[in-house]
Structure formats: C-alpha cells, structure tokens
C-alpha cells in the first residue's frame, strides 16, 4: 500500500498534469480536436484554476497531512488510478489526431442534418462539404444544384461494408455539436477514376468538380476534376452550433 501522503501527492499530480494538458492543447490550437470551440475559453480558465489548485495541493501534500479524514476514507492505489495514469502517458506520447475512418465506419452517414445556419434554402450558397450534403438531401428541388461547381475539403473515406469501386470514393467530414463523442459523419461520393492509386485513405484532400445526378443507389455525386492533398485543416470538424 501507498502511504496516504504519497497517494495524495500522486492524485494531485494527476490532476495537475491533466489541467496542464488542456492548457497545452489550448496553446497549440488543438483543443478543437476534442471539444467544440465555444468551450475553449471556459475550458482554459477552469484548467488554469485547476492547475493552480492542484499545484498548491501538491506542495501542501508534501507537508504532514492534517487528519481531517475520518476512518471511512479508504485510500489505496487501484484500477481507476491506473486508468488515469495510462491516459496521461498516452497524452504525453501520442500526438492528438482528429477522428477518421475507424470511427466513420462506426457511424452511419447522416444525410438529413440540421445546420442552424441554413434556414433560407433558396438563397443558400453551399460552400463546405456539410453545406452541400444538406443542400442536396434536404432541398425539395435538388435539381437546381445539378451541374454546380463544387469545391470541398474532407478526408478520403471508403466505407468498410461497401465494395471498393474503381472510380468512386467518398469525401467525409465529421460534424460536432458538443465534443468529439457526438461527431456525426457526413459524406459525399466523388467520381474519380482509379482513385486507389491516386488517393490515400484518411488523407485530407481538396476536391473540385461538378455536381451531377447519377444512378438510383446514390442519387448525387461530385465528378471530380481535381483532388489535391492538403494539410489537415485547422478545424478538422465542422460545428453545428455557430461559435
């Protein structure tokens, strides 16, 4: 068994490192890989405050503990402590990355998503992948989009449960309303001959082309003229609620 003081020190240190991790992500502009940007300020303020408290707690735990705990407080190093330590080691060694195909396979592509910014469908000018998906699948008259120029960003996605077609692949993007666990998948099929030799799965691309109506199974697709690799965008997800 740990003695109580060491264990307390360990717990304070875990809190300290977790708070500093949030601050580090904030400084590196990577918080948005995990949470909606509207929380950034709140998260950073509370993390700074938590860092301060845990720091003071850590220092004070080195001194003789004041015995306020009654007998009931059972303190020992357990499985739950181990989980947090392993998580902390992961935050140290593993670069933060946005969700990609592995999670996409676990989600069904959402076609009828409600984007708050899209009330007026007639005057609506779709720009992003999610805008386009919304425009195509929720418009009462999608034919007006036929032949329109499209310029979208997303990652290359081939659903696990679909057969690989030589000239058809998906461009996908996650949409987040609170944090990454609620990310919903939005995809648009693109027609791009011999894509497997030209596009790497899970890589970020900018696709330009025209929208066209095709077969019954997938009523719409983008006939891509260009598909260029890009670096991972600053905001890998799109957000349902304006920031």
């Amino acid at each position: 068994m740990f003695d109580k003081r060491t264990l307390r020190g360990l717990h304070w240190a875990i809190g300290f490192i977790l708070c500093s991790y949030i601050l580090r992500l904030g400084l590196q502009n990577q918080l948005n890989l995990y949470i909606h940007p509207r929380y950034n300020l709140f998260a950073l303020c509370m993390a700074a405050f938590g860092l301060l408290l845990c720091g003071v707690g850590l220092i004070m735990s080195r001194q003789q503990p004041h015995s306020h705990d009654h007998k009931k407080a059972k303190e020992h190093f357990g499985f739950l402590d181990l989980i947090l330590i392993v998580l902390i080691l992961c935050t140290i060694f593993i670069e933060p990355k946005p969700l990609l195909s592995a999670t996409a396979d676990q989600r069904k592509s959402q076609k009828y998503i409600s984007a708050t910014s899209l009330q007026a469908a007639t005057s609506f000018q779709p720009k992003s992948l999610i805008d386009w998906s919304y425009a195509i699948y929720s418009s009462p008259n999608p034919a007006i989009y036929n032949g329109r120029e499209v310029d979208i960003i997303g990652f290359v996605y081939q659903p696990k449960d679909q057969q690989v077609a030589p000239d058809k692949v998906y461009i996908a993007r996650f949409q987040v309303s609170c944090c990454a666990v609620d990310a919903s998948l939005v995809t648009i099929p693109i027609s791009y001959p011999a894509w497997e030799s030209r596009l790497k799965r899970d890589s970020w691309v900018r696709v330009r082309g025209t929208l066209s109506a095709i077969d019954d199974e997938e009523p719409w697709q983008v006939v891509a003229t260009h598909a260029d690799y890009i670096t991972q965008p600053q905001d890998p997800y799109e957000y349902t609620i304006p920031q």
Partner: protein
Amino acid sequence: MLILTLSGVFLFGMITSVEKNKLNHLKKYVLLVLAITSLAGWWIYSMSPTAWENLLGARMQDFLTLTLSVLIEALPFVILGVTISVLIQLFLPPNWILNHLPKNIYLRRIILSVSGIALPVCECGNVPVARSLIAKGLSPAESLVFLFTAPIINPITYISTVEAFRLDPSIVAWRFAGALIIANVVASLIGYLGRSRPIVTEEFAAVCEADEHHHRPTLRYGLDLFYREFWTVLRMLGLGAVIAAASQTFIPREVVTSIGSHGFLSILAMISLAFTISICSNVDAFFALTYARTFTSGSIVSFLVFGPMIDIKLLALMKSTYRPWVLATMTGSVFVLSFLLGLVVNYVR
C-alpha cells in the same frame, strides 16, 4: 520534453517511495512495468515522433481521441462544480438550511426538491449534506427528497445538460421534471413504509448526536475537501470516458444500433450502464451524449434520471446511513419509475 522529464522523475520518485512502504508485490510489479514502458515510450518518441502513429492502429487512435474528448469536455465542469461545493461546505453554516425550512409539509417538500439550486454539490457530496440534515432533525424520508433531486436540479448539472443537448432541449425538461416526480414519489413511499420500522441505521442514529464539529474555513481544510470530491469524481470520470469511447469504437455498429433503437432494450441498457459506471451528475450529460444518436430519447432520459439517484458508488455511500430495506426499496422503485419515464418519453416522441 519538460513534461516528459518531470513525469520520468515523478515515476522514479514514486517507485522509490513505494519501496520504503512495502507495497505488495503485484502493485510494485505494475508500477515497474509502467515505468519501463514509459521510459521505452520516451525513447521511441525521442527518436521519431511519428513512430507511435504507425504502431498504434487507427482504431486505437480514435479510441484515445474519444476518451480524451469526454475527459477534456467534462474536467472543467468538474473543477467548477467541486469548487462551488467546497465553498458552500466552507462558508454555509450547517444548520442554516434547516432553520429556514418551512413547517408546512408540502411547502417543505417543494423547497427541499429545489434546494439543489442553492447547493450545487454532486451526488457523493450530497450524502454528507443529507446526513447532517437528518442529524439536525429532518425526517429521514424527507432527506431522500433532497438526496435525489439535488444532484439533478442544480445549476452545474443544468448548464452541462443544456450544453450537451443543445440540439434537443426537450431532454433537459424531461430530466428535471422526471427527477422531481420520482424523488417525491419514492420519498413518500419510504416515509409511508417507514412508519412502522426504522429508516436509518443504528450506527448513524448514534452518530447523529455526536457528529457535529464545525471546521474553520482554512485553505488547508478547503483543499482537503476539494481533494476528496475532486478525486472521487475524476477517477469515475476516467473510467466512464474509457467505457464511453470503447462502446463507440469496439462494439460493432449493428449491435449498438439494434439495441439502441429498441424501445424497451435501450432503456434497460442505459439504466444498467448508469448503475455500473456511477458517473457524476455534473458531467453525465456529456457521457449520455455519446449514445444520443444511436439510442432512443427515452433511454437517454432514463439514464440521466436514474444515474444521479442510484448507482453502485452511491449505494455504498448511502449504506452508512440508511437501512438495507430502504436501499432495496429505493433502488427498486427508482428503477421502475425511471423505466416508466423512459417508456413515456419514447411513446410521446
């Protein structure tokens, strides 16, 4: 690099201090493995920062991202919630509430039902408050009204639930209304059954007279309180985050959607989940959000109502105060009522 060095030094310090204290063999072994793994990890990392990405499968990477996302989203709310709870415990005199409760039984129940607004402590912090209320003369059955509603009807839980379910605000209304009704029904039931037999344990009844010593609000005492609550919540949160992420990453989508879309099974699944993971009410909305897209709304509401009232951790805490028949009755009745609430929500929506 600084963090790496610090954690290395920290682990080393831990192991040496552990030696002194005769840690049992298994734990020493686990720590040693951890230390070696982290040193090896550090070594690989310093050689090539991208090596990990290749080593770690895409699925594991997403699992980690999801786990951290729950943790990072919830941690600020935990810090805020625990801080407020500590401030209240430090500066609010223990019998203040009791002195200000009305004598009329219905009015008193109403006030107790919403007193969480003024006392935003989460459920583990509530057990001591409820104990002190009983010790001060509140009837044990009425203490249950407070115990069950306060974790749900309080500002922190309100904010986090509203934030998590921005796209579906009716969940918030269902959660609060459901909590009010269930808490009062269960408390009345226990009060009715408790007319002929004692509700609180003998030990606690004995403690009631002796228990009161008020602490001066010093920094050390405040930190002590903060530590106890923060740590209880944080470790449960860690486990909850891992479970949430694992169920999204490793359980096949077909299984999740077939259970989640089933009106009956989904409620059963979410209540069992609430019972086992014992996640704190201040942040459980973010956890529930994980399932919001695949599970029925009724099951989400059941989870959000049942979890703060009954779970493994709470039963363990409440065992110190209430007799076994009370625990069994409240668990059974809260379960049945939350289940019904879930069915109603599923039916209405």
